[in-house]
């Protein structure tokens, strides 16, 4: 009984490490393959459309509602202290530092990441990747790298969109509904938010999340068992693993970025 348990623990650990190894090698090949995408911007643009542009709607609607809720909650708390004029700072800082990068990355993993995994997994299952290899076309360069770059570039843009729409939503609720002075909403925000500390750090976060999510999504698809069940499990793993990685990395990044002051 105990031996069996130990055996299973051992084999799971070993499987985990081999998978990490395969994933790292895959990542190295993908990054190396990215060079060959540069002379063919069309491949990248097509992928930016399906990974980025098609995520526009879900990102902006979610951003709007998150911003509006922040406006409401922030107002109730701040007005207790008579500090409702600083609502703009609160909304913008929460969005730019945390919610923008994190929530948009989670939505991105659900919307675009799962789609990438399913697409690559099905291409594998229908022998399209094998077929490409036999046509002397490297599927990493032709299929994976453009998608990787597209994810990497789209994520910060989507996070910026999320934060922007959220700030507008907070302003709509704050000054439209609850009567916070519009001038101080914007002025306080301008005065208190730091470009380097808040905006750049937020962008760095979203680049890291984009990198990790796209990597996980592409690798799970590429490494999936080429059957319907295999692809469906890979898609689930993409969403779950991305969520864990995003939240875990967010904690680490926040500790590193905002810990000192």
């Amino acid at each position, binding site marked *: 009984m105990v031996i069996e348990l130990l055996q299973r623990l051992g084999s799971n650990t070993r499987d985990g490490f081999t998978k990490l190894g395969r994933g790292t090698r895959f990542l190295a090949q993908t990054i190396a393959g990215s060079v060959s995408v540069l002379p063919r911007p069309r491949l990248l643009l097509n992928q930016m459309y399906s990974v980025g542009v098609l995520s526009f709607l879900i990102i902006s609607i979610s951003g709007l509602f998150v911003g509006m809720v922040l406006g409401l909650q922030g107002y109730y708390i701040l007005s207790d202290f008579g500090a409702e004029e600083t609502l703009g700072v609160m909304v913008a800082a929460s969005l730019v530092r945390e919610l923008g990068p994190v929530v948009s990355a989670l939505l991105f993993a659900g919307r675009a990441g799962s789609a990438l995994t399913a697409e690559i997994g099905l291409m594998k299952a229908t022998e399209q990747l094998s077929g490409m*290899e036999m046509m002397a076309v490297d599927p990493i360069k032709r299929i994976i790298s453009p998608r990787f770059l597209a994810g990497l570039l789209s994520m910060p843009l989507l996070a910026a969109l999320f934060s922007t729409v959220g700030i507008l939503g907070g302003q709509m609720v704050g000054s439209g509904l609850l009567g916070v002075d519009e001038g101080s909403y914007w002025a306080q925000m301008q005065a208190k938010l730091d470009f380097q500390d808040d905006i750049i750090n937020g962008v760095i976060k979203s680049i890291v999340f984009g990198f990790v999510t796209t990597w996980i999504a592409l690798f799970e698809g590429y490494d999936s068992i080429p059957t319907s069940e295999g692809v469906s499990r890979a898609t689930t793993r993409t969403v779950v693993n991305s969520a864990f990685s995003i939240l875990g990395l967010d904690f680490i990044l926040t500790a590193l970025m905002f810990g000192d002051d």
Partner: protein
Amino acid sequence: MDNSDSSQNTLVSVSNLTFSRGNKKIFDDISLNFERGKITAIMGPSGTGKTTLLKLIGGQLCPDKGSVKVDGKNVHVLRRAELYDLRKRMGMLFQSGALLTDMSVYDNVAFPLREHTKLPESMIRSIVLMKLQAVGLRGARHLMPNELSGGMARRIALARAIALDPMMILYDEPFTGQDPISMGVLVHLIKSLNNTLGLTSIIVSHDVHETSAIADYIYVIADGKVVDQGSPEHIRKSSSEWVQQFMNGTADGPVHFHYPAREYVDDLLSAGKRYH
């Protein structure tokens, strides 16, 4: 089998190849030769690793032992770029067709040309139309792969496989799951393309009738070994009981109808103890 006299005429030679998957030995010290300009068939029951053999020839899998030489080059010691150069001269027809589902028929056939050549679009158009004409589907060029029947998809894949004018084509079960008409079309196409384009064809199949109608030479493999080889006539008259069963499709013979199991009576009577 590896005599150097015939090496000039041999395009692909597989020598002393051993390959296993897990603990299962798929090929056990197998040697095959494929002559230039001929249609050579590899036949055998499902699950004997016929597709695996094609993947070994194409360099997608590596053997445990032995070598595969294509046009004098050992596939498994080539560097990546050299292997890719070699693959440009090989076409492979997958069972599923393996068409790229996000592109039209036209773009699928144009795909290898666009990836590997710098030809202007006007010339690519002429080549694509010629290849599609050869498989009789020039009129279907605007369709998407999901609008094609199985037989059409395979013909489009064939047009794509010959787009770069390869020296040989590997066919993976080209006749499986085809209606009689598409089957007839494919049989005719494989034969006529082989002769008119001067190709070398390797067909992996278990469709005895169709394959032996067009093959020049047949290898019958089972359990990782070559059971018999020779011209279709030779195979039909084979003295091996196993080959006879395979060629005639009889239900019982050296290959049993039943999957290995313990005695039927024992199995039924032990039902009280365990339910499977």
